[in-house]
């Protein structure tokens, strides 16, 4: 991996805190990111991902703690930080009443991209965003996928070494999302450190490393594989039973079962010993008028890990999209 070869640290976050009155949006978060790494902030809405990104961009002042972005303290030198970063806010923020090229020229001017370079960068962005032939269209008339790629183009016009993308693919169709992630990987390959926040589990798998955030706290961090492996204390089983609700309740009090949660039309059950459970659980259930049609050991998904790590979420279950 790029990051392990060149281990220069591009972002350091140390016990960062952000409070709004009584509410603590970001609580003692610490991590590091290396050059060329794709770091995902994963967590439900309201977990504090946007607040964290905004502090790293110098848009919000940390209550306490320290964050160095490209070696600059975000609290002390927010202006200097801004020259080194690209930012895509959660809300679409190009000018709808400006044409595609007008938006690009505008941001090029703001970042001080030289005229000769800007022409090349605009051509590149338009190709990258698939907007060839639509250069003079008003941005307001474009579909979301195109808009997001154009917004990404505007954020990287000045070739920043660090890029912050706050839920860049929300509201974008799967194909456009796929294309967007290809761009992110291409940029990381060029040495750009990319921060992406998301609440899509499948997107999280595309990241080199993840920081799991829940209620403002860092719950876990590591590569997707590490997280999946470390999150579960026992083994994971998939159960298809009828009726589901009673099954969950029964399994909760069964011996050797650590956790049971509904996943779509089946159950994910965490047990201490997989073999013993596969042998014993169907009988245990059928004796209590619950039929078990299928039971097998599966490898945990990120979502399992996430549910496990963030503890019981309100309602006790997480439903799969």
């Amino acid at each position, binding site marked *: 991996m790029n990051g392990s070869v060149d281990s220069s640290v591009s972002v350091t976050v140390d016990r960062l805190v952000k409070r709004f009155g009584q509410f603590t949006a970001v609580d003692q978060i610490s991590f590091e990111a290396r050059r060329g790494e794709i770091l995902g902030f994963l967590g439900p809405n309201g977990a504090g991902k946007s607040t964290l990104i*905004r502090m790293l*961009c*110098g*848009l*919000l*002042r940390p209550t306490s703690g320290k964050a160095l972005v490209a070696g600059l303290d975000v609290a002390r030198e*927010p*202006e200097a930080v*801004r*020259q080194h*970063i690209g*930012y895509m*806010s959660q*809300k*679409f*923020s*190009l*000018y*709808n*009443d*400006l044409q595609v090229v*007008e938006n690009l*020229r*505008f*941001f*090029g*001017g*703001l*970042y*001080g991209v030289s005229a000769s370079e800007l022409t090349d960068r605009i051509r590149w962005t338009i190709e990258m965003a698939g907007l060839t032939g639509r250069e003079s269209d008003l941005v307001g008339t474009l579909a979301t996928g195109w808009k997001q790629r154009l917004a990404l183009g505007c954020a990287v016009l000045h070739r920043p070494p660090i890029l912050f993308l706050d839920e860049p693919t929300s509201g974008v169709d799967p194909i456009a999302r796929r294309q967007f992630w290809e761009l992110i990987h291409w940029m990381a390959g060029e040495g750009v450190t990319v921060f992406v926040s998301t609440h899509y589990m499948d997107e999280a798998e595309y990241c080199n490393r993840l920081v799991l955030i829940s209620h403002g706290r860092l719950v876990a961090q590591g590569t997707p594989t590490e997280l999946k492996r470390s999150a579960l204390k026992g083994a994971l089983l998939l159960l298809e039973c009828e009726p589901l609700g009673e099954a969950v309740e029964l399994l909760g009090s069964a011996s050797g079962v650590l956790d049971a949660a509904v996943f779509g039309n089946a159950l994910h059950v965490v047990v201490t010993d997989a073999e013993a459970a596969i042998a014993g659980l169907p009988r245990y259930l059928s004796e209590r008028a619950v039929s078990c049609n299928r039971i097998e050991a599966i490898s945990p998904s990120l979502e399992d890990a996430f549910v496990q790590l963030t503890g019981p979420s309100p309602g006790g279950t997480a439903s799969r999209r």
Partner: protein
Amino acid sequence: MKWHRLRAIARKEFIQIWRDPRSLTIVLLMPIMQMALLGYGINLDTKHLQVYALDREGSQNSQSLLKRFQASEYFHLVRTVDNYRDLTAALDADQCKLGIVIPEDFSERLNDSGGVAVQALVDGTDNNTADLAIGYAQAVVSGYSREIQLNWLGRQGRAQQATPALSVESRTWFNEELESRNFIIPGVVATVMALIGALLSSLTVAREWERGTMERLISTPITPLELMLGKLFPYFTVGLLDAALCVLIAVGWFNVPFRGALTTLFFTTSLFLCVVLGMGFMLSALVKSQIGASQMALMVTLLPTMLLSGFAFPIDQMPAPIRALTHLVYARYYVTMLKAVFLKGSGVDDLIEPMLALALYAAVVVFFARRALRKTLE
């Protein structure tokens, strides 16, 4: 301050004005509408006031007095009624502004030279018009009275002594015809500048907040000063163009004399624009809502310009505390200068005092406007 960032913002802002039908309407139509509305609408000259008369005598003398009312350009004798009730009814129904009552013994008392009173009933709803009506009526009556005296003295063979020992020969300068339009129109330029400057600039930052583009904007290296100057430059240009349009309408259409130098006019206008644009920008940055900011901007710019600048209502006639207050109203200095440049042909030398006052105001407002814009989401 970086030129490329300033230019990027200014260019973007120009494009947005051009693409937004609402802004474009304000820019193009507002000066014309304001000029027409205020130029025609506010007319402080009272001419052809409707008059009803009750002639209780019906003599040659009484008729010749009424003829004098008729002949005056200030009055229009609509009708003669035969009883008091009809006269008061006409006043109540707003059919006339002035009622003249001539007593039965008019001629008799005239000949006795014991003095005779003619009653004038005035509709005082509009005190300005009422004042003028009374003044004009007195002038008409005293003119007539002098003629009677002259006749009487003439018959006595002492005509020459009738000439008063002293009299005032008045000559009006600067607004020779005493046209209230000449007095008002130069001030309309100030209301147009206040309206356009404050309205457009009060939308500019709030719009970015409302559309979510502000967060993106402050994540770039642009400085608050660059953002302010870049955003206000297009409106400043538009303001000056509109000022030119106003002068053109004032001189070409309303025939208001323009005796000063255009450079003086545009220099003072630039100072005034700095004040109103700065105020609009500051409110926009603080309030962060287009509706809220524009309402407040109009309140602090257009309202004092209309009421307390001496644009239509002379400052000398205001009560002392209000008169003192007008020194804080920046529009006062601008309106004073506009009128002086238009009608007196005053140059920079004559206007140094109001010009410095306005410049000071502009500096203070621009200073606070720049500080109002914070590059943070908090």
